[in-house]
């Protein structure tokens, strides 16, 4: 009986390696390029392109527990004045609304990652813990963020990333 149980466990483990092997931090470490962003609103409606069809974004997790993310909407225009301080206020306001960046420490527990924010384009995020539900499948990383209010509407957001494999810098 005991033998049969063990055999079943081993068989299950072989058939579903993801069950028997928890996701480790090493699976997260590296730089990931944003592929897509989608929102599911409280009323059930979905928005497949809240950042435009081709947003640009990166998130980096380092082996020594640091993270940094920068995400920009598709279709952002250069400022009319090549200076982020003296450009017209309305252009700066618009540029601010279409960009997110933050950095800090992170902790990873296999099914979720917590970003301990130390610096952010949105100052309100500093010293907060941002919890993201993690799904890792090969070179794809999904981060889901339940109930975040943006633009006055609460929604669940999902960001999907692909691992970047770069040539080492020379």
């Amino acid at each position, binding site marked *: 009986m005991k033998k049969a149980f063990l055999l079943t466990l081993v068989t299950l483990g072989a058939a579903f390696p993801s069950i028997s092997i928890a996701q480790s931090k090493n699976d997260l470490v590296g730089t990931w390029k944003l592929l897509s962003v989608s929102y599911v609103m409280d009323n059930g409606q979905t928005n497949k392109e809240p950042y435009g069809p081709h947003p640009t974004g990166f998130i980096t997790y380092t082996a020594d527990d640091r993270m940094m993310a920068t995400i920009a909407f598709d279709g952002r225009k250069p400022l009319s004045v090549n200076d982020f301080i003296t450009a017209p206020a309305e252009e700066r306001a618009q540029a601010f609304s279409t960009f997110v960046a933050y950095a800090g420490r992170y902790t990873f527990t296999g099914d979720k990652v917590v970003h301990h924010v130390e610096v952010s384009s949105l100052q309100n995020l500093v010293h907060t813990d941002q919890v993201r539900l993690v799904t890792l499948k090969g070179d794809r990383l999904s981060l889901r963020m339940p109930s975040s209010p943006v633009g006055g509407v609460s929604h669940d957001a999902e960001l999907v990333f692909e691992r970047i494999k770069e040539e*080492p810098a020379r």
Partner: protein
Amino acid sequence: MKPFLFLPVLLFLIPALGTEYALAPPKSDLVGTWKLISAIDTTDKGQIVRNVYGLNPTGFLTYTADGRMMAIITDGGRKPLSVPDRVSAPAGERAEAFATSVAYGGRYTLDGDKVIHHVEVATMQNVVGTVLTKSRFSVFQSRFGESHCWLSHLPFFT
């Protein structure tokens, strides 16, 4: 005046307590996360402007072993938005928040005593697709003159 172009400038390796490298460091010296200590601007007239990002700015710069970099710096004394939402906060607050933060990311390469940032994403869209070259010795020419930031490697400061 806080020129964007000098922001992520190169590093002064504090851990070695003043030891400067005569040559470009091997890549392994660069890889890791760096915390901003201070930023200084030198105008084209040779005037030194200290505290370019205000007192106690917050900033990090990460170089990975596989050739990626990302940087973010915000001014000291920055206030939260009255509405915690980057879209629906008052426009004046958003404009101010934009002027007090810089961030960008992309690939990096090394060329002698310089590190070159190939910008792929940035708060200021104008620099996306451009190449920013930083002197290894933390001083370089920006359009406003020489500028540099001092950064320390995190493990030595936490």
